[in-house]
């Protein structure tokens, strides 16, 4: 082999190395490549260096330079590649972070409880006090003081559940399950002078059979504001504010109605929040959804609690918590609220 062959061989070795390096994928292939080029005994660079001993003196210098240059190129490229490997390598104590974690279990809120708290929060912010009251009531607080004397036809609207034996109390014997939270209005006004600004919230009972929209027990929110100069327009402003918070719909409509304990009385609709009034299945094509019954407190109610109806006026409204939840979350069957099926409860967030 001639000396000039040596030089061209080293030059082609440079290309061979580059090619081999580009094919390296794993770190063991890398080690293999390093050994085959830089190995002290059998490495190619060592092989070429051995050629120097036998090379003609005139080319020794040039050949030596070529070998050194090749060695430098190989070393630099390998170092660079090694750094890359080091960057992507996983330490020995690495774990599989794609395995599922241990999720601490938190319970889920009942949807009725979520609505209840939302309502409490809204009215607390509006300066109301929030009250609860007894679920077993006497006839006086549930009916009579609310302008529904015995034999009043409006009692038909409240199919009442009675106790077999009255429960003794400091006041009148408790004989029935309250049919509305309005009983709380009376209890509060009897013991507190005006002004009044309260919401009463809790379960109420009616002798209604179970179906898609009725349960014999349901929850009510009752609002009562009494003071000088309280008007029906104030009621409209208040329920608009509530509707905006609960449903995002602030447009309300009052329809005259009848309740014995309010005069005038009105049923309140909100603009359908699903179709914005265009008419859909939720609002039964009417563009409006009925959400509550309300009115101006009847003077007979004020008289029953010792308020002077010439001095104060007031508004009251009552709303079903289940109905709000049904509307808000599209719950077709009210009975789902009382089955406590976790597959249902877990849909409402923690």
């Amino acid at each position, binding site marked *: 082999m001639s000396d000039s062959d040596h030089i061209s061989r080293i030059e082609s070795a440079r290309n061979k190395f580059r090619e081999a390096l580009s094919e390296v994928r794993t770190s063991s292939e890398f080690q293999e490549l390093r050994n085959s080029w830089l190995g002290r005994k059998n490495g190619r660079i060592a092989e070429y260096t051995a050629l120097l001993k036998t090379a003609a003196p005139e080319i020794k210098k040039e050949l030596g330079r070529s070998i050194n240059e090749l060695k430098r190129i190989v070393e630099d490229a390998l170092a660079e590649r090694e750094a890359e490997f080091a960057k992507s390598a996983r330490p020995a104590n690495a774990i599989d972070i794609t*395995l*599922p974690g*241990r999720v*601490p*279990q*938190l*319970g*889920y*809120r*009942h949807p*009725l*409880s979520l609505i209840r708290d939302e309502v409490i929060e809204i009215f607390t912010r509006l*300066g109301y*006090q*929030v009250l*609860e009251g*007894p*679920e*077993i009531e006497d006839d006086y607080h549930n009916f009579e003081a609310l302008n529904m004397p015995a*034999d009043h*036809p*409006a009692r*038909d*609207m409240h199919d009442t*559940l009675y*106790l*077999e*034996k009255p*429960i003794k*109390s400091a006041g009148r014997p*408790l004989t029935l399950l309250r049919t509305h939270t309005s009983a709380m209005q009376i209890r509060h006004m009897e013991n*507190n002078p005006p*002004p009044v*600004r309260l919401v009463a919230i809790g379960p109420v*009972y009616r*002798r*209604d*059979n179970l179906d898609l929209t009725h349960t*014999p027990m349901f929850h009510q929110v009752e609002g009562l504001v009494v*003071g000088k100069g*309280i008007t*029906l*327009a104030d009621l*409209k*402003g208040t329920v608009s504010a509530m509707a905006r918070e609960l449903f995002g719909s602030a447009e*309300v*409509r009052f*329809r*005259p109605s*009848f309740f014995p304990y309010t*005069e*005038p009385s009105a049923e309140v609709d909100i603009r359908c929040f699903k179709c914005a009034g265009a008419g859909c299945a939720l609002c039964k094509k009417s563009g409006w959804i009925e959400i509550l019954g309300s009115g*101006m407190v009847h*003077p007979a109610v004020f008289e029953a609690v010792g308020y002077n109806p010439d001095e104060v006026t007031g508004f009251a409204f009552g709303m079903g918590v289940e109905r709000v939840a049904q509307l808000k979350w599209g719950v077709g069957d009210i009975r789902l*609220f009382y*089955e*406590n*099926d976790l*597959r249902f*409860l877990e849909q409402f967030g923690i």
Partner: protein
Amino acid sequence: MKAPLSWIREFVDVKASAEEIGALMGLRGLPLESLETHGDDVVMDFEVTANRPDCMSVIGIAREIATAYKLPLAAGGTKVPPLQPNGNVPITIEEPELCCRYVGAVADVTIGPSPKWMQDRLAMCGVRPISNIVDITNYVMLELGQPMHAFDLAKMRQGKIVVRRAKAGESMTTLDGKKRTLSGDMLVIADAECAEDIGGVMGGASSEISSATKRVAFEAAYFAPSQIRSTSKKLGLKTEASSRFERGADRTAPPRAMARALQLLEQIGAGSFTGDATDNYPTPYQPRTTHLDRARIRGLLGMDVPDESVTRILSSLDFDPEMTSTGWIVTAPPWRVDMHRQVDLIEEVGRHHGFEHLPATFPGVEQAPPPSDPRIARDRRARTALLGIGFSEAISFAFIASKAAEPFLDGQGPVAIANPLSELFTTMRPSLLSGVIDAVSHNRRHGRPDVRLFEIGTRFSPDGETRGAGFAWTGLATPDHWSGARRAVDFYDVKGVVDQLAAEYQVTPSFSETKKSYLVEGRTAAIVVNGKTIGVFGQLAPAIAAARDLPATDEIYAGEIDLDALSAAAPAETLRAAALPKYPSVVRDVSILVADTLSAETVRGTIRSAAPETLIQIREFDRYQGKGIPDGKVSVSFRLTFQSPDRTLTDDEVQAAMQRIMDALTDNLQAVQR
């Protein structure tokens, strides 16, 4: 109230369609329930509220529509010459309080079907056509709202009409063919001897109009609402007539109705009036006037209604408003039995002026709101704690089956419902556990092996209401995980729940063994605070679980705590922050062998009584029985923490304390140090 549009249009010339009328009337207090087409006509079914018996008539509905559309109300077919009673019909009213007016008129008749137009109108209103005479009475009732009746005069002994109370035990067969026994508080229309009609409710079969009837006595009367209501309720008999009378009829209507009936009689050729008519009217109607204060309208509604509108609306509704300097003196028409006070007039003005004109204002706050019911915040703390421990919230019916209530009655009687909807809802729950266990069962039967549920609610006893939290846990305490940490729930998990819940109120309860029929004996603990039991928990008795269709292999741990009592035990003083300890603590472990019958509480108590005040914590951190431990013994390891607030404890003094503790354990409990 169903009314054909053609009939309505006899009284008001309204051009709007039935749909348009329905939409507007909904905003004026007379909502439309449904519309039904009948040939060329449309039947409008209006929802009439309990206070408006006057709208249970076509003319009443037409009056509302006329007012809403600012149109005049026409008399239509009701424009007939007034009745001229000659007093020849023998009518005696023995109970003027219950029947304050009775108009009777006698006519000769030929029984047959009524004309088609009359039959059609009755049918459209949901009333079955029967015969010309009966149809006339029903037609007048639908048109004017005044119920009427017709007796076969030949069947009325001595031709007499007596309004009296039923005799005790008196019975009669009503038009529906049922024999009814009457009581002395009911009002009847009788002939000289027998009851022939339950006044204002239903007529009797014996004096019923038949094809052979030749002469009839028409009745148009006024009956007291409460009388009709109680009779109708007692007999379980609701009729078109009773539903009008019980809400309050118009005392001035009977002669008008009678005149209209007699006019129809001639018009359809069913017979002729004999001229004999009596109007027995012991207490004539006194018109009621109310002062309507102009300022009060705005004061109550919060919107201005112009004077002209007030006058127009009231006049259109047949009120008589007489303007004064401050407002109006208003006479209500006699059929407006719902008019008692000024607010009633304001409602009339408001609803026909239109609630759509109400501005939305906001009531000012006059004073800081008084505090809310403390139970709201208190229950929220319990709820938050239980949610944080992984329990989901349940809400169940407060009434349960009497059998389900039994195990929880605790020696007290049940709070039973007199008129339950079904046998599933007979008893007010004495405990929340019944509902919670049902909820667990529901979830178990729907493929959920691991269930944690709680409910916060009211419990009922003959002493009244208390608020509690009930909870149940079944399945895994630590869920399935690839790392293999799975563990089933046990007694100590729920004990931890109770501790955590009590800690929420800064209460440290103690626990004592107790027995409950619904919990497994030996695995039941009473929760004791200040010497008072405020709750109980343990493993649910298999019999209870089985009764609720829970799988027999399930272990369910459940408990209930009285939130009223728990929060009452919370320290009253305001929470104060304690300074952090300045001096280090010293920890010592001790392992002993003791008899396995000794309770952990006893060992802990022995340690505590022998230890100085500087012992601040005792923790059992290991408990072992088995290989290397003699039978009947258990190895227990305690970690004791010593700390002083005012100095660093020396090794010597801790060592001395440990020695005293070990001596006490050895002497008192025959413990052996390991």
